[in-house]
């Protein structure tokens, strides 16, 4: 029996073996995977990338440890990019269990800024990120919708003090920031339904440029807003995070997982194609066999 027939009736355990080997190797190794970036992610990156130095980016982190795995990579990539490009970052956490996690994330990113890096060919020096100068973390307040509306009037109304208890007026960067009209854009990274409030009450009422990063499951339901121009970009789950890391040239957890994902997919697709090649190659033979049987 020829190679194709062997291919046709290949024992499935070869499939298992190959898949397992590929997964383990790719997991262990650390090669770069090219990630196909979708326009809705690229638009976010480009928007931030083209902002002038010193502009304010608002990053509400409305998620809790539950959806950390998917959403943390987005936050890390975006905030680091902002600080590398010497923007000021304004952060809130409108999810009950969010603040502690957000605070920890901020500290980690601050540490990563202490070493010089080269992203997309541009080399950035090490920077000392100062609370109140480069960023302000406002913390948590209940009733997201009302908080969002209040901030539209003035950040000081929902947050007279920041997360660490300092009055906003005594933070240097907050001096000339009153409300949404003073921010360049808001990137809402959310695992809760706060995203709806950001779209309808925040962007809808005050009309600042808004982009969102959401968990994989809830990605589809926000695409309509992209069509209606209410948001200028959307990052969906692990994949979206990986795409952004790709754009920011700043590989993180998301890309690690994607590496294994991609190779596993390739293996599966390859096997499907092999199966079909074998199928068509042996088709004529099978037909003849049938004919002889008929005779």
């Amino acid at each position, binding site marked *: 029996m020829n190679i194709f027939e062997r291919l046709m009736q*290949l024992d*499935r355990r070869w*499939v*298992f073996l190959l*898949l*397992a080997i590929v*997964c383990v190797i790719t997991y262990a190794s650390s090669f770069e*995977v*090219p*990630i*196909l970036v*979708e326009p809705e992610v690229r638009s976010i990156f480009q928007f931030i990338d083209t902002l002038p130095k010193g502009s304010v980016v608002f990053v509400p982190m409305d998620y809790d440890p539950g959806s950390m795995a998917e959403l943390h990579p987005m936050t890390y990539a975006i905030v680091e990019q902002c600080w590398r490009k010497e923007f000021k970052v304004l952060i809130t956490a409108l999810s009950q269990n969010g603040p502690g996690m957000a605070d920890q994330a901020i500290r980690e990113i601050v540490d990563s800024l202490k070493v010089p890096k080269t992203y997309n060919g541009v080399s950035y020096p090490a920077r000392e990120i100062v609370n109140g100068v480069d960023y302000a973390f406002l913390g948590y307040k209940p009733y997201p919708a009302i908080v969002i509306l209040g901030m539209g009037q003035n950040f000081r109304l929902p947050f007279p003090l920041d997360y660490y208890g300092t009055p906003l007026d005594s933070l240097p960067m907050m001096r000339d920031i009153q409300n949404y009209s003073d921010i360049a854009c808001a990137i809402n990274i959310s695992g809760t339904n706060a995203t709806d409030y950001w779209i309808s009450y925040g962007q809808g009422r005050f009309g600042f440029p808004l982009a969102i990063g959401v968990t994989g499951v809830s990605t*589809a339901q926000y*695409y309509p807003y992209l069509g209606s121009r209410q948001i200028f970009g959307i990052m969906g789950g692990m*994949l979206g995070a990986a795409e952004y890391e790709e754009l920011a040239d700043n590989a993180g957890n998301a890309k690690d997982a994607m590496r294994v994902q*991609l190779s*596993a*997919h*390739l*293996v*599966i*697709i390859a*096997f*499907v194609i*092999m*199966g*079909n090649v074998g*199928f*068509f190659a042996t088709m004529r033979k099978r037909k003849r066999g049938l004919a002889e049987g008929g005779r």
Partner: protein
Amino acid sequence: MMKQQIPRLIVLVFGAFLLFQFFVPHESSEWIYEFLLDWTIIIGVFALAVGIWSLFNVHVEKIKTKKFGWKYSYVTVIGFVGMVTFGFTSQNGQEWGWFFPFVAAVLLTVLMIVQAGATKGNALPFLGAAAFFALCATVIAWLDTTWSFYFQTSVPLQSFMFRRMFDNILISLHATTFSLLAFFIASAAYRAFRARNIMASLLLLAALVVMSRFNPYLEPIFGEHVSRLSNWLMNVPNLAAQRAVIMGIGLGMVATALKVVLGIERNYMGKG
């Protein structure tokens, strides 16, 4: 009569009531509804005894007939009894005292009973041993004060052994069994995705497009429209298919349920 008519009558009564309860928002109807749901839970708990009985029967039978792999039946029994023991006891302090000897005694008791059930010869020695171990267990439980039984409060659900068994053993087994899917989905795709006829080809093509939606290595082959195409596939033909299937299922369900309530379909309940 007793064996058939009355069960059917019960089905009719309860079915009809719950059918109309749906349209009555009033408090009283809600009260009855919730009460009935409690019934199902309670009966379920009592039924569990039946299930466990069957479980033990099966394994005793296996051991008795020395059926292929009968030795492993002991593992199941031990696992079950162990988990139950952990589920009824909890430490008082940090000390373990005689807890594990107690568990061992309980396990041995049950194993002896199982053996007595499974043996072809004289069961008495096993029963005697069972009684002995049971006695040991009781004595330990009586004397040892480092741990105690909790039958009426759910304290043991948070106890050391129970939680560790769940977090480390059950979760591992669960997650791993689940993750076998990663391989099975591959082998299934390899075996079944062959363009035998037009339907298989459609299945194959749709699956391939959606799978390769974010795969950069395939970009030169499919072009960058593939992600939009897969998005379209998910939101248009998939949506249409789901609608058709959901509606069909809905009608099928209602038909079946109606037949059962009206007693047209009687096959679900025994006759003789």
